[in-house]
């Protein structure tokens, strides 16, 4: 049975059995939708690899993305996490394994290369590997797709800026985790990524 629209009641209105039944049936419907197998995040682990990139497909529900990455041997040059190709975690000097952390997919202002509110006199950098400048303008976040020395207004100059799509509940996106060693083929584990609340 599908979710049914719930009417808003007014004071003095008779509370009907139908109204109560719709409430109860909607709760049951949502419960049934969520009564699923509880699946894990399958790890990625290789004992001898110089660099790796692993894709995870999410059906979005929660804003925070948690991760844990470990180099068992060797020295990591970097690890990076991308949301639909957009860089959201960039550690270019990882020091103590395992590396755990969290990024808010609803807050581009917390992502790498966020440059604040757009300013017509500022230079912005081109998006090459998901790492272009991000600005906030008119309540929307934009990423620079063609580097320039200023004067190109987001939302108007569409060949210089594109709006960042914040994931909505139920939408699909790809999370890509990449990592590379600075000292040859070593042991790497991308243990998990998953969505969570704060």
């Amino acid at each position, binding site marked *: 049975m*599908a*979710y049914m629209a*719930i*009417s*808003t*009641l*007014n*004071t*003095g*209105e008779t*509370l009907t*059995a*139908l*109204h*109560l*039944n719709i*409430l*109860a049936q*909607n*709760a*049951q419907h*949502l*419960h049934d*939708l*969520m009564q*699923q*197998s*509880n*699946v*894990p*995040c*399958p*790890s*990625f*682990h290789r004992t001898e690899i110089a660099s790796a*990139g*692993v*894709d*995870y*497909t*999410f*059906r979005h*529900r*929660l804003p925070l993305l948690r991760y*844990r990455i470990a180099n068992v041997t060797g020295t990591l040059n970097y690890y990076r996490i991308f949301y639909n190709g957009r860089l959201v975690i960039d550690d270019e000097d990882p020091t103590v394994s395992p590396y755990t952390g969290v990024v808010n997919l609803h807050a581009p202002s917390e992502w790498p290369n966020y440059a604040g509110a757009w300013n017509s006199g500022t230079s912005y950098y081109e998006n090459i590997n998901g790492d272009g400048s991000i600005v906030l303008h008119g309540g929307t976040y934009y990423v620079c797709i063609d580097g320039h020395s200023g004067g190109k207004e987001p939302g108007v100059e569409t060949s210089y800026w594109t709006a960042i799509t914040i994931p*909505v*509940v*139920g*939408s*699909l996106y*790809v*999370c890509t985790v990449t990592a590379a060693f600075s000292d040859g083929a070593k042991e790497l*584990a991308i*243990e*998990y*990524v*998953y*969505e*969570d*609340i704060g």
Partner: protein
Amino acid sequence: MFTPLQDRQNGQYLSASYLNALSENAAHVYGMGLAPNMPFRGHVGSNVFGMSMADAGWMIRHRYTYLHYKVVVTEPLDHFRLKATDPKKTTNLIVNDSPGTTETFQGALDVSGLLTLGAWYELYFEIDFEGTTTAANIFIQRLWESDATSVEPAPAAGAYAVPPEWEQNYTVSAADMNKYKSALDAARSQVSDQAFNLAVRRNDTQDRGFWFVHRHRWLHHVGNGEIVDPSGAGEAVEISGVEGQFSVFDLYSVPWLTEGTLYNVKDANYAVEDYDA
């Protein structure tokens, strides 16, 4: 705790206990929508041959009509097949022996007449490149079940309202009753209107395996494994299984494993929590 409620009839006495159960149910389903959300891990392969069951497999408990799949290849194929196997038999889900120059294979396949409801299966692809001599790529990007053929965003809603608590002889106000609407509409916007049953990739690691946030009592798994507390505080627990067969382990027997705990299942070929055995 969720309590199934029987339909009410007009003229029936409205009790505080009924309304409280309704409140708890609304809060419960909203809370379910806030449980951690795990991803689908697919496959990226590059070789001159293609792929088979030996390269990758995915475990799923059949629950919904449509099996969503998406596979991208970079060279023409000789054949593209998707199969489901359990210990008793293998079922062909897709057999395409004339794929031509197609590079993206995707769809929502009706598997209701092919698979047994509630049964566990291993899904795998048989993909052969058509005589390529250089390495070509295979990307497995989707493999999950749903009750719908498309993926739709959840309907938007206003903020969640905590459903009221009742006592006998309280007056039922419109404002209190409208909190149920706010709570349930918010829960729907958090859960979405579509069921989503992910396939879980076979363990392809030496000793890392699967990471869970604990929710259900029963751990369905294939092969031997170990349940590990990554904090090091809880003692590791061995689980034993039979290669190629689905076994079940009662997670209530792990004393340190409480709901919401992050833990790791190592070594097993597959592992998935479920609410029944």
